[in-house]
């Protein structure tokens, strides 16, 4: 017996070591790699944040949990590229795409939201599924199903990478990633301003609180919905460009929409800063996890790690990082 006892104990120690200590040793051993991973995570996080942002905008203003945000990203990117391929100059293509997104917003408001006003959330949620399916079909019908190259250069987005020598190694920063980060920040700031300063923005915030309040500001709900969905559309477009620039434009992209869910959970459905912080946490968390712990279980844990992080988190703070505490009344 002692032998096997030894044996088991050995195994346990081994596992504990692999899980609890070894990863950190690795980090310490190659800080440059560590930073690299963090950076990668950060960028992914930014993109998650952007999608989450789309969700939050819509959820805040219309209480709709817009599952279609992901496909909107894809759709926007596809349209852009598609238009370009049809021979429009890039800047024009961007404008037209914006136009398309606007039309989309209007259409959704008319066809989906207005008839379904005052329906339970789950129904609206389902409706956005409908939208998703519709857009998938439409996108593929028009632009075909196969992946496309994002027109990075034509949009004057930088290529290549900067290699910074640090921590006894090289850390590589893709210019596009930096750009992405910068643009994301710019956009978030812009949105913040839009919400704080402009009349419409205030109205939107009002809607978030109560619909009556919004009306008192003198903007009809329908207008607000259009605006919000359009804004979400813009966010989607930017996200699409960024993401497309890093990999390529395909329907596989829509899966990242699902990734935005745990982000939302961390950040809370109604909080813009929450979305961002959440995005970063998830992004970095899952990259680190994949890189350092993934191998232990054969990798690929990226696919669910995010959710489990979120789940664990939920159990302690059901209302999310920035969400406000729910007091149930009866």
């Amino acid at each position, binding site marked *: 017996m002692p032998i096997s006892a030894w044996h088991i104990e050995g195994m346990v120690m081994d596992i504990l070591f692999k899980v609890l200590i070894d990863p950190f040793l690795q980090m310490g051993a190659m800080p440059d790699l560590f930073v690299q991973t963090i950076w990668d995570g950060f960028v992914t996080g930014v993109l998650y944040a952007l999608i989450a942002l789309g969700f939050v905008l819509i959820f805040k203003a219309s209480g709709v949990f817009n599952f279609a945000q992901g496909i909107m990203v894809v759709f926007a990117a596809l349209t852009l590229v598609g238009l370009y391929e049809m021979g429009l100059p890039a800047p024009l293509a961007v404008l037209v795409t914006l136009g398309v997104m606007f039309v989309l917003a209007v259409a959704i408001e008319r066809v989906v939201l207005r008839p*379904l006003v005052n329906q339970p959330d789950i129904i609206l949620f389902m409706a956005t599924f409908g*939208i998703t399916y519709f857009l998938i*079909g439409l996108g593929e019908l028009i632009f075909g199903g196969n992946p496309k190259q994002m027109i990075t250069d034509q949009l004057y987005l930088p290529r290549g990478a900067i290699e910074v020598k640090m921590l006894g190694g090289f850390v590589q920063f893709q210019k596009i990633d930096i750009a992405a980060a910068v643009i994301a920040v710019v956009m978030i700031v812009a949105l913040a301003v839009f919400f704080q300063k402009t009349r419409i923005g205030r109205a939107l915030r009002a809607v978030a609180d109560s619909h009556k309040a919004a009306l008192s500001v003198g903007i009809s709900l329908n207008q607000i919905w259009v605006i919000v969905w359009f804004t979400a559309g813009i966010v989607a477009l930017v996200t699409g460009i960024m993401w497309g620039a890093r990999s390529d434009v395909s329907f596989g992209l829509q899966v990242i929409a699902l990734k935005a869910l745990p982000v939302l959970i961390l950040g809370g459905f109604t909080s813009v800063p929450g979305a961002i912080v959440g995005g970063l946490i998830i992004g970095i968390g899952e990259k680190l996890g994949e890189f350092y712990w993934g191998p232990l279980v054969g990798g690929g844990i990226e696919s669910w790690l995010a*959710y489990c992080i979120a789940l664990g988190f*939920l*159990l302690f703070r059901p209302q999310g990082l920035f969400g406000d505490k729910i007091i149930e009344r009866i």
Partner: protein
Amino acid sequence: MFYRETGQFKTNYADDMAVFPILQDRIGIALILVVAFVVIPLAGSNFLLSSVMIPFLVFSLASIGLNILTGYTGLISLGTGAFMGVGAYACYKLTTLFPEVNIVVWIVASGFFSALVGVLFGLPSLRIKGFYLAVATLAAQFFLQWCFTRIPWLYNYNASGAIEVGQRTLFGINVTGAKASLEARYMVLLTIVTVLTWVASNIMHGRIGRSFMAVRDMDIAAELMGIDLLKTKLLAFAVSSFYAGVAGAAMMFLWYGGGEANDAFNINQSFLILFMVIIGGLGSMIGSFFGAAFISMLPTVLKFGLPALGIPLAGATAEHLTYILVGALIIFFLIVEPHGLARLWQIGKQKLRMWPFPY
């Protein structure tokens, strides 16, 4: 109009509380069963069985499962696909470990495993509500899916990494595997579905069903009435996942005849079944069947229907159109009848009962 209820009065509670109190309904059900059990197997073409009835039945079972959770108890789940997977793999392991035990037994038994897993992932449901819960179930979906592909033991280290369905017999007739006749598979499946449906409706008509609905309609009030939320919700998860599990096993063994988790039990499957439940009608047994029929048959109908209408389609385009149409139809249905086909059915029935009066 066909209803003749006059003179149907109940002299004891048992009759009054029957699932089908109206004579004409009982007749109707009997007819349907006869058709399903006798007419279709005899008269039905292979096509009807393989690409209409069998998928329909499998999905019906799954949507009953989800309906119990989402429709009756009001808990959204996006993990149905994964729970089905658990069933499938459980069944696979069981039948390979104990080949001598009859496959049908295992198909049903595998439900218990998915029930177990369901409870596990249901645990958060006490604290988490609505979309948050949906996300929690997504965790289940992805984690389990990951397990299916990353844990070779589950698929017996097949090179293909997929479930391979062997020959299994019932009363000496092949019911699974390549040699099993469609009819045999259909009959087995149909029997399972019928029995489980009956059981489900029993549960829903009793104390448990009521506490489910109580939790759905007004969980606070339910709790203040002494209904233990956690227990109830977990039970809902268990029952629901059981059905999903059986559906999954049935899907693999009686329909696909083997396959790989990522295409059979992926997130889209979960969504699809959610659609069925919503379109069919939340909180309605018959709705689950309507929904399953609608969603599972729609693509087939379009694939063969549109060309028939003289719209020539390449396979791909057809697929895209299907997507568009499904999407549009979902929205359409949500708008015209948020309570799903079941409600339409109910209204129609009411009209028939009140005929010739409008109400």
